[in-house]
């Protein structure tokens, strides 16, 4: 009888250890979740989020930083570098400020046929705000996906 108890507790310990190892291993190898599949914490227009950051960067940081945000705006330009990282720049005509969206490489094809003036919704993680008198101020989004809005 006693032997059986020992055996059972031994098996239980092994199972628990195995489960722990499994969880740890999975956690260790965890990949980034596609931000496109995550629900947006806030949906806001480009002009509004720039306004929020310009007015009070600290408050906006604590509200938006690290959050998944969907931003509606007009494409000003699409920037592609030699390593084919794409940045989509949203800005209203005449404004120095913009929302710069670094596109997740798995969604690069969504940026392919964007032209300046396209209406889009960009979803990404907000990484912060860069204010510069000379260069204009930017809200930066990372790991972005893009959806075109068809308004015709």
């Amino acid at each position, binding site marked *: 009888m006693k032997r059986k108890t020992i055996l059972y507790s031994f098996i239980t310990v092994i199972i628990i250890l195995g489960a722990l190892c499994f969880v740890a291993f999975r956690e260790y190898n*965890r*990949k980034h979740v596609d931000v496109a599949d995550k629900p947006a914490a806030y949906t806001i227009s480009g002009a509004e989020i720039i306004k929020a950051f310009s007015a009070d960067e600290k408050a906006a940081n604590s509200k938006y*930083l690290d959050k998944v945000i969907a931003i509606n705006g007009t494409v000003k330009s699409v920037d592609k570098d030699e390593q084919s*990282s794409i940045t989509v720049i949203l800005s209203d005509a005449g404004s120095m400020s913009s929302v710069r969206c670094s596109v997740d490489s798995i969604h690069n094809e969504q940026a392919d046929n964007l032209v300046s003036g396209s209406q889009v919704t960009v979803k990404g993680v907000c*990484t912060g705000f860069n204010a510069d008198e000379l260069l204009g101020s930017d809200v*930066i989004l990372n790991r972005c996906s893009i959806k075109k809005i068809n308004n015709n």
Partner: protein
Amino acid sequence: MKKIIISLALVVLACQSQAQDKYFTKTGKIYFDATTPASPEKIEGTNKSVTCVIDSKTGNLQFSVLMKGFEFERALMEEHFNENYVESSKYPKTEFRGQVTDNSTVNYHADGVYPVKVKGKMNLHGVSKDVETSGKITIKGGKIIASAAFAIVLADYNVSIPTLVSDKVSKNASITVECVMEPLK
């Protein structure tokens, strides 16, 4: 009348040349590497949204990096970087303000590769420190490519490494900068 026109033209020219002295990018790259020989894997992060401005006249140089913009291959590593090491919610931005100390050796109008020295102050994790490094300025087709590689001692910036992983995370992070800058118009 002629004088006015000439002086106006001069003013316009002066403004133009001033604007063209500056080069900038908002898509500069910074690579972070804290791998040690004992690390079970590479500890590398990449930031693709670095803002950088250089004034070719004075050699003044400025970088702005949003810490949450560093991407790591493993999600867990990225979270640790943000939450335990650089505390990016508390200190979202790292800035460097400095100068190319031997700016006169660079001919910004002729294509070529110029080795330079850069000196300045970096503010990371709420700590401001002097940084000095050698780098390279490449002029190519009207663009400036600024690149540099240097090491920072994480402890200098109050970034502490837990003893449990002290041999697996390097105490000296190597930072590689690569910025392709265009003239500011």
